[in-house]
């Protein structure tokens, strides 16, 4: 059955593209005509020591790709295909793979490791290949170190592929024993020790029970800490990766080791090579992440039943940790601000310092201030930058009371530095720090304002000037202005920004036209800032925002005129169109929010819609999404007159609803269907057959990201509300889908937080659909059609009430559905309603809720029920 494939595999890697193409076609044909033979040939090739390493490696790679895919739907197909292969064939392939682990070629061994793990990922959950782990463990005790290394690597990949639940504890124990023994200092072979250390990283998720056992945990921790001192840098790095992972996964078990860990990490940060030192810093960053989460969740108050207590490791380590991190800040690289991929000690150290500040709050301030004061005026730019970065890093966390006096002193210094400092690096960090000041210490919630009528003009002048600086500096200045504007979001009818509005807008538009605006994300930052300035503007500047519509429309028009673009240019045009559509969306939403500006805006509706339609023709996912969002906002503003655009727009709506790959686009389009329903009401009728068909297809697809499904259900409600009893013809399709989704989402027992959150989104979508349908059919002679669904819907309400895990949004929607059902079905459902738990306990609970939206819905439900029962 197997076939000689060596030559084809080599040709498939040829330089000559026609040779390559021919070989690829041959392989494809072979796979399609005889899958078992294809797999056997590849595994035979991989296992054969006589074959060239290049063909062996490619054979393994093709095999691996035939077992797994990123896309869920495709992955499922591949898994089913493997499982349905003949048992004999599979045994033969697996034997070849295991045999390859003893190969003298490290490439072949490594490829085989990965394929074995993929097969294990499919078979172990099916309780197949039970002998795999046993035979791997037997290998570990073999003499040749390269076999041992390959086997440990395989165990590592296996732990990455398989979920812990499918491996028996007994086998877990054996895997961990083998891995930890391999890591031990007395393991003489470096490759073996490295493979073992990397394997442990993946195996940590299996070690729950072992970490609860003091002796076993002590042993693992000792071996890991010893490995951080290995003479081999890769082993040290891998050992720190384990430590970082342990810090997150077993935070609550760290107390006995934290002092030792501090000692070894601080030595590594100061003395070791960068890749190791960075991991050592990352350990403390991840401890900060843990403690921030814990403190946020429990608000600092611990009761006996808190899941994980906070051990305040950061607070305890503070006096030593902060000086260590401050030292790293002086280790900047010359051009890190221009390099998108840069990550060095100074960046990692500063990031960690910021996390420490968020973890401990006020306590960090006195530890950092002397460093800032000492360095901020020094001649060496590194010292000035480090001092500024330290200051910027601690602005989130400590209380405004603590920070405001310091910021009041520093603000003027910062503004001068941003204007005059000779170092672009210092200016970059200074502008970023100003942004952080405005983000965390400026706004209606802050008691003592740091921006006053006295300094407002100076701040704006400096920032606008700075927007002409180097692209990275200008980008940070835009960011600072973004947060400056945001702080005036709810300032009332008069904004301190008003006098500068026109100048700010002009400066930002100038930035977008800079030759070098493509660098450092500058153009994007300028448009984003423009968006925020518009969002936070007041009626005083409504006229200027209206004028901006024409400016942005002209810009968008220009992007559409360019012809014969190279692929690079096209990409840039598409990006720019996305930014411009985003900006128009913000403007439309702003002007649409009040009646006078809405009417003034209407004069541009035709032109804007025409531009959007032309943008759609460009077919780029991002542009598509931004234009779609903007159209949703436009539909709201235009109301029923949107009908005139439907003929041209409809095909793009269809395209959006079918975009499974870019699910964000699909989700956004579903939202826009809702906007259009509300705008057109029954004028949407002619398009409903098409829209409903696509929505139903979306729901049945297992390719579409699950996050799009709840909004699709809500959209059913929007459509029903818009077209009323005409929804009748969709009932036979929509109701069974709603019903089965309701059954699935009624119970969450055993689900994790993420699943419960999703379930609640789904419930909300289903309930919004029911609400829309009931309200749509109200006062229609076809109300009778809904009666058969009432028992199930009431049962659904009862069961989610009993489940006690719905959030406020679901609660509000659910009690509203009860009202809608009573309102529309009236006395037809009177006795059913009276029998339901929802009409009593649930309703009472909602009536006494603190949430006014829940209460409001409940009042409505109470009224509707009383009418339904009394009639």
């Amino acid at each position: 059955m197997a076939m000689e494939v060596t030559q084809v595999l080599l040709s498939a890697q040829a330089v000559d593209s026609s040779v390559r193409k021919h070989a690829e076609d041959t392989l494809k044909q072979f796979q399609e005509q005889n899958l078992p033979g294809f797999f056997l040939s590849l595994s035979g090739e991989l296992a054969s020591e006589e074959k060239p390493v290049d063909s062996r490696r490619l054979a393994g790679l093709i095999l691996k790709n035939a077992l797994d895919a990123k896309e869920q739907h495709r992955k499922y197909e591949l898994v089913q295909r493997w499982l349905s292969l003949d048992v004999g064939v599979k045994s033969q392939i697996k034997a070849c793979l295991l045999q390859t682990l003893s190969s003298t070629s490290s490439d072949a061994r490594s490829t085989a490791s990965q394929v074995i793990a993929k097969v294990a990922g499919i078979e172990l959950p099916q309780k197949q290949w039970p002998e795999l782990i046993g035979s791997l463990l037997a290998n570990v005790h073999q003499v040749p170190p390269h076999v041992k290394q390959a086997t440990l690597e395989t165990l590592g990949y296996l732990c990455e592929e398989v979920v812990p639940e499918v491996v028996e504890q007994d086998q877990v124990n054996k895997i961990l024993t083998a891995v930890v023994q391999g890591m031990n200092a007395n393991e003489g072979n470096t490759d073996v020790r490295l493979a073992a250390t990397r394997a442990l990283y993946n195996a940590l998720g299996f070690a729950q029970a072992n970490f609860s056992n003091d002796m076993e945990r002590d042993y693992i921790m000792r071996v890991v800490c010893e490995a951080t001192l290995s003479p081999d840098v890769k082993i040290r790095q891998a050992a720190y990766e384990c430590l970082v992972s342990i810090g997150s996964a077993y935070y609550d078990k760290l107390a006995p080791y934290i002092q030792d860990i501090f000692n070894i990490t601080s030595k590594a940060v100061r003395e070791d090579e960068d890749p190791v030192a960075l991991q050592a810093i990352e350990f403390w960053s991840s401890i900060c992440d843990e403690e921030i989460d814990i403190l946020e969740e429990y608000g600092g108050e611990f009761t006996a039943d808190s899941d994980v207590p906070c051990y305040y490791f950061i607070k305890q380590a503070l006096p030593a940790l902060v000086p260590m991190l401050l030292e790293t800040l002086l280790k900047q690289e010359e051009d890190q601000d221009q390099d998108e991929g840069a990550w060095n000690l100074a960046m990692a150290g500063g990031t960690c310092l910021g996390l420490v500040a968020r973890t401990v709050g006020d306590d960090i301030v006195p530890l950092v201030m002397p460093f800032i004061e000492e360095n901020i005026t020094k001649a060496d730019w590194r010292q000035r930058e480090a001092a500024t970065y330290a200051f910027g890093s601690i602005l989130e966390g400590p209380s405004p009371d603590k920070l405001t006096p310091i910021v009041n002193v520093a603000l003027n210094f910062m503004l001068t530095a941003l204007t005059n400092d000779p170092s672009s690096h210092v200016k970059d960090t200074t502008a970023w720090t100003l942004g952080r000041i405005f983000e965390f210490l400026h706004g209606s919630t802050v008691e003592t304002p740091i921006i006053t009528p006295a300094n407002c003009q100076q701040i704006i002048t400096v920032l606008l000037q700075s927007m002409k600086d180097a692209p990275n500096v200008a980008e940070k200045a835009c960011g600072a202005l973004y947060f400056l504007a945001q702080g005036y979001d709810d300032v009332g009818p008069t904004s301190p920004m008003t006098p500068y509005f026109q100048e700010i807008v002009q400066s930002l538009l100038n930035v977008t036209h800079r030759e070098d605006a493509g660098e450092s994300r500058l153009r994007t930052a300028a448009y984003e800032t423009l968006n925020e300035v518009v969002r936070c503007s007041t009626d005083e500047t409504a006229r200027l925002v209206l004028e901006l519509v024409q400016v942005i429309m002209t810009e968008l028009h220009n992007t559409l005129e360019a012809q014969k673009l190279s692929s690079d240019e096209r990409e840039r045009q598409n990006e720019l169109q996305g930014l411009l559509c985003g900006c128009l969306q913000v403007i439309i939403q702003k002007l649409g929010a009040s009646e006078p500006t809405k009417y003034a805006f209407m004069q541009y509706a035709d032109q804007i819609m025409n531009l959007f339609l032309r943008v759609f023709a460009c077919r780029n996912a991002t542009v598509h999404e931004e234009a779609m969002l903007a159209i949703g906002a436009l539909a709201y503003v235009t109301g029923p007159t949107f009908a005139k655009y439907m003929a041209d727009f409809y095909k793009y709506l269809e395209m959006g609803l079918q975009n499974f790959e870019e699910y964000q686009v699909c989700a956004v389009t579903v939202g826009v269907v809702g906007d259009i329903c509300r705008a057109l009401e029954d004028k949407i009728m002619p398009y409903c057959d098409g829209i409903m068909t696509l929505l139903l297809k979306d729901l049945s697809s297992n390719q579409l990201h699950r996050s799009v499904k709840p909004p699709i259900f809500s959209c059913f409600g929007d459509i029903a509300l818009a077209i009323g009893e005409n929804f009748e013809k969709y009932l036979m399709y929509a109701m069974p889908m709603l019903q089965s989704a309701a059954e699935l989402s009624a119970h969450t027992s055993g689900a994790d937080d993420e699943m419960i959150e999703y379930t609640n989104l789904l419930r909300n979508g289903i309930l919004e659909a029911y609400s829309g349908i009931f309200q749509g059919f109200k006062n229609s002679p076809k109300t009778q059609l809904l009666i058969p669904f009432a028992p199930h819907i009431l049962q659904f309400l009862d069961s989610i009430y009993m489940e006690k895990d719905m959030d406020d949004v679901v609660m509000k929607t659910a009690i509203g559905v009860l009202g809608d059902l009573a309102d529309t079905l009236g006395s037809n459902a009177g006795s059913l309603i009276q029998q339901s738990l929802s009409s009593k306990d649930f309703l009472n609970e909602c009536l006494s809720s603190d949430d006014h939206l829940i209460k409001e819905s409940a009042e409505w439900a109470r009224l509707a029920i009383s009418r339904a029962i009394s009639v």
Partner: protein
Amino acid sequence: MAPHDLRRPFKRPKISDQQRRRELSLQRQAQHRRDAQQQARCLADTILSLQNDVAAEAEPQFESSPQSEEHSQDFDVRDAAKLKGAEARRWFAKQLMLPEWMIDVPDRLSSDWYVFARPAGKRCFVVSSNGITVSRLRNGAMLHRFRSSLPNGGARGNNSYCILDCVFHEPDQTYYVIDLVCWSGMSLYECTAEFRFFWLNSKLDEIGGGNDRKYRFSAVVVYNCDQEGLKAAYTGMVPYVKDGLLFYNKHAHYQSGNTPLVLVWKDENCSQYVVDTDSKGQVPDQQHVVLELLDDGGVVTSDDPPVKFGCLDSDFVQKTGLKTSYLLRFAIGEGGLCFADGKLEKADLHYLGKSNRARAFADSYSKVIFQYAVRHSPLKIEHLFASISSSNEEENTPCDTEMVG
């Protein structure tokens, strides 16, 4: 297994503006969906409850002509909002909820009641519909016709409408909204006062008072009627001239006509008009009352059921040409009012003449009694405070109930 990437975001905001645009769009859509639902729920609701009200309220003693009675059966509130002239007057004259006068202190004042300072001015309904806003006085007569920032009260939007219960305060040309009957097509007739006040405040915030318009809308500050609340309402500064205190039972629905669940009380410190004046603005020597004449010659208050103050001689009725349902003015003579078992037994009435034509109702029983008390032994603010503190004590005293928990 290559080393894992450990880069973290550097000098970057936590969320991108694009993500923000998505989230803000979703928020907007959710809000509009909520509004659409609300609209759907409440439109029919309003029509229904108002029709009921109209039917229930169409009692003969208030109707001078039988034709309008038939009409009123067919109205929904939008028709009512469009009514003109005499018909509109008749319809709106029956819609206001009218407080009784506080003649004794209700139980559970501090837990079940709100209190606020009543603005001095013209009590009226403000109705917005079809892009115009009309205010109508207690007797149904039109006060102003203007464009406002109320939903559908300025720019023409949809079919929605609002009905607000207001006091028009001349000095600052402001409508002080003291209650909310319908908002954007949503009826609040059957909602509790607690909910109506909450809704009123949040909706008025949304339209922002309408500073740019001819007349402003402003809410009054409503307090829980505990020691502090009563003190604040009684002595606190307000931007308007006070005319007594209004007490609202938190659980009461909006109900047309007189209700004991809303009470008014006043003394010289919080009102210029404690003792009733005559048409020239003078306090008469004797207390005047307006009562309605029945078929049998009885003269009664506007309460439901009416309280009978006396009976006119049939000869006298014939001689003066008085007809059933006329409103008549009397003075209370030296004999005063006599009570037995808390009920009015006898009144020393002296006929003065027919009442002013602008009057739509007779006086209520509570008004007569309150005015009588003001002239003889008024209910003082100290009594109100005392009642609140004594009820607090009661709550604190141990009760006899056996604890089984």
